[in-house]
């Protein structure tokens, strides 16, 4: 008994330690954002919301936030249907030998470092601008195309996992009851995949919203995403304004996860 109690205590310490390690930076950011002094030191001289006001006054953050929000929404809206279709093809279509290659290709963006992918895209955009004789880098469509790339591996992974657990017999039953293939997909397959698709939307949104490395070279003047705006600010100043902005970001993502969890239990799909 004593041994098992000791084991349980050790386990508890390990879990607490792990969670502490994960959450400490997040908590630190939130705490620092309300310190009143410019140079972070402990204990704080006093607490204030001045940095939030400062962040609000710096219009590049508000504009960056708006751009990031738009970008993440549009990239998700394009990437999730594409990724879902790709996952369906991967698990259902007769692909023969190319299945493995296709799978690797679709999951590829996860394996390539963001800076590398960003550089590659930048060079590709420069080249492509000659072909189409129009701007791509620094434009919103250019950013969307890049961010769709971020959303696809997540969608393919999450939807493929949902597909694996899907009872094909339910689709057959629907066909047996007179449903045509598209009706089967719309009424049976898609609703059964809903948890995976919702989770894919969430993760795609977060991936796009917080991405820095891939985006860095692709933003243009006056069209900066929030993470890039934050990095730019950091080049000249170090004060808790960034902590305030980050806190807003954390709150947004946290709220999204909570809302999503009310519709589908995230622990079931991730």
């Amino acid at each position, binding site marked *: 008994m004593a041994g098992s109690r000791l084991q349980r205590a050790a386990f508890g310490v390990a879990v607490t330690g792990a969670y502490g390690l994960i959450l400490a930076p997040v908590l630190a950011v939130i705490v620092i954002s309300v310190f009143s002094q410019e140079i972070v030191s402990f204990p704080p001289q006093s607490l204030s919301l001045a940095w939030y006001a400062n962040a609000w006054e710096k219009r590049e953050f508000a504009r960056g936030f708006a751009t990031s929000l738009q970008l993440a929404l549009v990239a998700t809206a394009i990437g999730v249907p594409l990724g879902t279709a790709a996952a369906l093809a991967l698990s259902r279509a007769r692909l023969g030998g190319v299945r493995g290659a296709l799978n690797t290709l679709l999951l590829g963006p996860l394996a390539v470092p963001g800076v590398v992918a960003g550089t590659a895209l930048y060079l590709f955009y420069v080249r492509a601008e000659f072909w189409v004789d129009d701007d791509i880098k620094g434009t919103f469509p250019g950013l969307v195309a890049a961010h769709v790339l971020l959303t696809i591996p997540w969608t393919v992974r999450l939807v493929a996992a949902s597909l694996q657990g899907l009872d094909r017999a339910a689709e*057959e039953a629907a066909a*047996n009851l*007179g449903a045509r293939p598209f009706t089967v997909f719309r009424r049976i397959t898609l609703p059964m995949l809903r948890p995976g698709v919702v989770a894919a939307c969430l993760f795609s949104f977060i991936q796009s919203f917080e991405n820095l490395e891939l985006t860095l070279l692709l933003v243009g003047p006056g069209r900066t995403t929030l993470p890039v705006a934050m990095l730019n600010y950091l080049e000249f100043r170090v004060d808790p304004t960034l902590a305030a902005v980050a806190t807003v970001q954390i709150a947004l993502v946290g709220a999204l996860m909570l809302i999503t969890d009310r519709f589908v239990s995230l622990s079931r799909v991730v």
Partner: protein
Amino acid sequence: MGTLTLDAISRRYATTVAVERVDLDVAQGEFVALLGPSGCGKTTTLRMVAGFVPPSSGRILIAGRDVTKAPPHGRDTGMVFQSYALFPHMTVGENVAFGLEMRKVARAERDARVREALRLARLEGLADRLPRQLSGGQQQRVALARALVVNPAVFLLDEPLSNLDAKLRAEVRIEIRALQQRLGLTTLFVTHDQEEALTMADRLVVMERGRVRQIGTAEALYERPADAFVAGFIGRCNLLRGTPEAPGRFRTPGGALLPCLPQQAHHGQVLALRPERIAVATAGDGLAARLVAVTYLGAQTEYHLDLAGTRLLAIAPTPAEGDPRRALAPGDAVLALWDPAEARLLPAEPGDLPDDAT
């Protein structure tokens, strides 16, 4: 409602044959069971009827119409799946209504028919539940109601009882049969459980390795099996290897000469003899045998006999107390007697006998 005809349907895969030229006619309102060990092609046959597996050759007719090339949604079959395959995101009522919705049945009639189907399946009051909130037996009845509410021409059942516990299975067996007879449903039923097939079906189709071995009523299959496989698969049977000698005489490898039905001497090499048709006696006529084991089972007693090196199982009602056979013990000498007409020569293929090494 309608008839079902399978005209020499086959299903071949690259290296294997799943179903080989199956012919079958199911009459209006008839209940036919496809019976066989796993991998015998019975489920593939059913799935070809439903349209999920295209036949490699042959034709399928439902109510006289050739549906061989029709998609599943154009066949008018009602299928109950082994896993029930309920739509998890729809309520019981929505599940049952789905087929009517697909047939564009008007709202009022749809509601009335769903209510009636739920009543028939004893699911009143559960219409608003989700499938996962139901017991296994209730889910099974939802699957039945969903398949039946559309009045399919042919009713298809794919091992629908295999996920129920033994007691429930016996009840549902009777329920399905009663419903099928009341509604006059033309039914094709797949099972590996011979008791299920014997108690429910009008006719049985015994399949093995993709081929039909025999089609007939339960009695025909039991009394007049076409070959050693059917004899061994339906009920228990002594299947003895040896050589037919004179008409009506069968020589075992141990040298014993067994009486059998005379006119069949050229029909096969295996002697089939049902255990309950062998009488065991301590005196009188019969072939001398030695008792190897006695198993008392209450109403019945099993006698394992050794007849000149050939093992023979005999089953008889347990003799009354005081009968000398009650005192029989392993090692005793006994006499085994049977009507020669009960011992039939049957053809056998490699693997048909349980002791064949395959």
